[in-house]
């Protein structure tokens, strides 16, 4: 594969190094001259010393024939623009992947046409949450043009909603259970559905009453 790595920071450097070791063809685009020189000393002639967020340098790096462009600078806005320009410049088969630092931007990038994102913050959070014995209460995303959001609550042992039917959980007015994920299957969240340990409950609720939803479902 031919992969363009936009941004030669720590992540970009180690990504490029790993890809080269795995036998792929790589080009790193790095704006800082000293950093670009250093990478060249380490990895050979695989560096273009230029700003990756300018289309002509993406073209110079050969993005029309690239199998992937991966934007890994430390700035979310810059990674978004690099990816959108790459989408514009690359061939139709080229994959475009963005690193995001603020996990909220994963959803945002999708809405703006960049489907593949990697958030190290999210990955670390997931690892930590899996280690916690109490499950999770996770506001997933805001809903456009409203004050509503989607929340995922995992029903853990000892939480107030275990064994209760949805109608007797006492969710605040204005909130709605959209579905229950149990063992990978989607169940409807009707009033007589009984919540079990391990269920992941998807709730639609106004952001303003998130705390109340949390206390009812999750304690």
């Amino acid at each position, binding site marked *: 594969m031919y992969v363009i790595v936009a941004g030669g920071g720590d992540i970009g450097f180690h990504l490029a190094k790993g890809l080269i070791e795995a036998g792929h063809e790589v080009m790193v685009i790095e704006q800082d001259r000293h950093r670009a020189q250093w990478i060249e000393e380490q990895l050979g002639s695989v560096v273009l010393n230029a700003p990756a*967020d*300018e*289309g*002509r340098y993406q073209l110079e790096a050969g993005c029309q024939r690239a199998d992937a462009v991966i934007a890994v600078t430390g*700035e*979310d*806005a*810059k990674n*978004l*623009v690099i990816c*959108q*320009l790459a989408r*514009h410049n690359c061939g139709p088969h080229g994959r475009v992947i963005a690193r995001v630092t*603020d996990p*909220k931007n994963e959803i*945002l990038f999708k*809405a*703006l046409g960049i489907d593949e994102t990697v958030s190290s913050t999210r990955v670390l959070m997931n690892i930590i949450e899996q280690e916690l014995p109490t499950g999770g209460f996770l506001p997933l995303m*805001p809903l*456009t*043009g409203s*004050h509503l959001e989607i929340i995922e609550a995992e029903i853990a042992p000892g939480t107030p909603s275990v064994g209760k039917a949805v109608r007797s959980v006492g969710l605040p007015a204005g909130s709605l259970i959209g579905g229950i994920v149990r063992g990978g299957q989607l169940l409807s969240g009707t009033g007589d559905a009984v919540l079990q340990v391990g269920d992941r409950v998807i709730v639609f609720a106004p952001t303003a009453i998130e705390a109340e939803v949390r206390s009812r479902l999750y304690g």
Partner: protein
Amino acid sequence: MNILIVGSGRVGATLAGLLDDAGHQVTIVDRDRASFAHLPAGSNVTTFLGNGIDLDVLRQVGIDKVDAFLALTDGDNRNLMAAQVAKEIFGVKRAFAKCNDPIRAEIYRAKGLATFSRTSILALLLKAMLEQDPEVGEVLLRQTLALERKLAGEEARDAAPPAAAAGER
């Protein structure tokens, strides 16, 4: 109009002052408190300290109710991201982004974003001035000079110590 501006640098703050004078309701967001010092003294512009590409911040300042949105920070990428968020996520009809790289400005304009580049505007204006081309920029130039005279006048008045004012007798 209800107008939201992200970036309280010289351009953003000056525009906020002009719009405020014209009777519009203006909110300006910046992540650096010191930048609000660019706003003209005594303006009614609402200031908000926060990151203007953050969805929660934009929601907090009421982006879903604005008639126009302008991203005027010193970073092209941040401006392009913020204006896309305003347009695509919050449905703001009129979203502008300052993008000083003219090529990027054109690419995003083709995607439906109202971008403008200080680079192109200033370069064309200067060229027109040098060639004494009356068609390009005459109105703009006249208004610019008037605005700058006004701003400088206000500055001098605010800065004048009482003793100097007394000298007018």
